[in-house]
């Protein structure tokens, strides 16, 4: 064995050693961050099964004998069930409206050529820069005039408007890549534009619609600002608005707070675990466009 090969061997052993060390460091760091996301949530869920006085002194122990008092209070006193229903009415309708209108518009924008098409596109893209703060007051006044304050529609319509542009742009990106041949063949067979839209475009575009639906639903479900402004009666509160009120009213009742957080977070979390791929794609769609 000559000198250079010994040196080579040494080099290899050295690199191996450093890779093992760096692997350990990498896993260590990753686990720390994972701990901050997993343990925090676990702490909340775990404590939601304890009595509020127990939490104050001993929040780390496992709730071996879980009690459901906090949940009973949450459902009976705070009426979280009702808030859930409100949330689903508002966010569900917003999703449906956004999908219908954005689907129609995106289809026309990718298929037809007409004057002002580019202007329209710029208008859609530009409106992505409007933060909710910059439209809320005129919206509130209109809703007031339409007598829709504290009515689900008062939130549904403005939320539809604020998600529409983004949905159109995402759908356009998808639809412009669909081959025209299929549509032309269908046209030869005697289909009109609407047949083509409903029978060909809609079914093929399902994945893009899923992205739009997920994005819109989560955005609407998690939105606090607009709901806070427009919904002013307690029985019309969706989840987020109710949570916000709970925190100012019952902030010191740890058990109740923990159970409220759990009730709100758990369904989302379960859906997330099942639809993870779609949800991640839906939420990052705006960023990785193209």
């Amino acid at each position: 064995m000559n000198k250079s090969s010994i040196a080579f061997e040494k080099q290899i052993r050295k690199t191996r050693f450093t890779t093992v060390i760096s692997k350990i460091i990498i896993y260590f760091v990753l686990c720390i961050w994972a701990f901050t996301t997993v343990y925090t949530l676990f702490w909340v869920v775990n404590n939601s099964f304890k009595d509020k006085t127990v939490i104050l002194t001993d929040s780390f122990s496992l709730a071996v004998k879980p009690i459901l008092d906090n949940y009973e209070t949450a459902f009976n006193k705070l009426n979280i069930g009702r808030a859930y229903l409100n949330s689903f009415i508002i966010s569900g309708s917003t999703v449906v409206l956004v999908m219908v209108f954005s689907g129609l518009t995106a289809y026309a924008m990718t298929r037809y050529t007409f004057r002002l098409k580019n202007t329209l596109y710029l208008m859609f893209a530009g409106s992505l820069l409007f933060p909710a703060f910059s439209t809320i007051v005129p919206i509130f006044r209109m809703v007031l005039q339409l007598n829709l304050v504290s009515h689900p529609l008062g939130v549904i319509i403005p939320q539809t408007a604020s998600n529409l542009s983004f949905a159109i742009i995402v759908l356009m990106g998808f639809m412009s890549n669909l081959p025209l041949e299929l549509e032309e063949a269908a046209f030869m067979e005697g289909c009109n534009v609407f047949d083509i839209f409903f029978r060909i475009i809609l079914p093929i575009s399902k994945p893009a619609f899923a992205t739009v639906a997920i994005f819109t639903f989560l955005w609407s479900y998690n939105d606090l600002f607009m709901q806070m402004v427009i919904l002013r009666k307690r029985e019309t509160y969706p989840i987020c608005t109710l949570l916000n009120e709970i925190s100012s009213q019952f902030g010191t009742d740890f058990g109740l707070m923990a159970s409220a957080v759990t009730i709100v977070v758990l369904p989302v979390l379960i859906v997330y675990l099942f639809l993870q791929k779609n949800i991640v794609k839906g939420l990052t769609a705006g960023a990785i466009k193209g």
Partner: protein
Amino acid sequence: MLYKDKRPLIVFIVPSLIILGIFLYYPFIQNIINSFYEISGLAALGGGKYIGIENYKRMFADPGIHQSLKNTLYMMFFAVFFQVGIALVLALMVDSITRGAQFFRTVFFFPVVISATAIGLMFNLFYSYNGGLFNQILLKLGLERVLWLSDELAIYMVSLPVIWQYVGFYFVIILTGLNGIPQDIFEYALLDGVTGVKKTWYISLPLIWDVIKVCLILAITGSLKVFDLPWVVAPNGAPKGLTHFLGTYMYFKTFISQSVGYGAAISVLIVVLGLVVSFTVNKVFKRDTIVY
């Protein structure tokens, strides 16, 4: 020939335009107009009193807006260095491992899905002086309890959950970018003896520069829109308005103080800042895109 007949356009495009026109473009423009008026009271219909650029002048003398502007700049700084920074480090790390990568993806991203309101409530439980998670840990370690939402600490404590929540978002975006780099580039690099940190610095980072730029723009403009979390953790800029951001201050002025015109001017400021910041980041970080 299929799309020669333009009449269906009415059905396809007009409904969207009506909704957008009434509930997005009109309010946006009306809001800009409002910012030149003195309007007291939300329900007061009619225009109020025209006062020119008084509302904008008023900003220079208003300590409240200085505080919220300062906090918003802080938040931008945190977003760039911690949100995108931590996300980048985590993404590079996850990209270099095979076992458990999917697990970390799942776990890092999930705070993004949860509503900011729920996260705010959660952090209220952590910060509480009596029996909050943080103070219980300190007590276990034999240390003194800390008043987390004190005047000095509050702004950091309000920013923390915002940063923490969105790390996973940028993490996924950067990781997707890293996964898009063709493997053969790394094989060539390996042949040339480029590995480890050098590989990251000279090959991976330049190749995902565009992705990082997008993240920076999103993080910075996102900081201008923070509202839910600060509002839940420290309602109304508590303590003493020290944790107001531009968004929460705008809400406070418009809906609580009822100076609607002034609130409108603040929201115009938010829009303008958003535009300026996006253009600046684009300019500053302009580099030739590497096509591969």
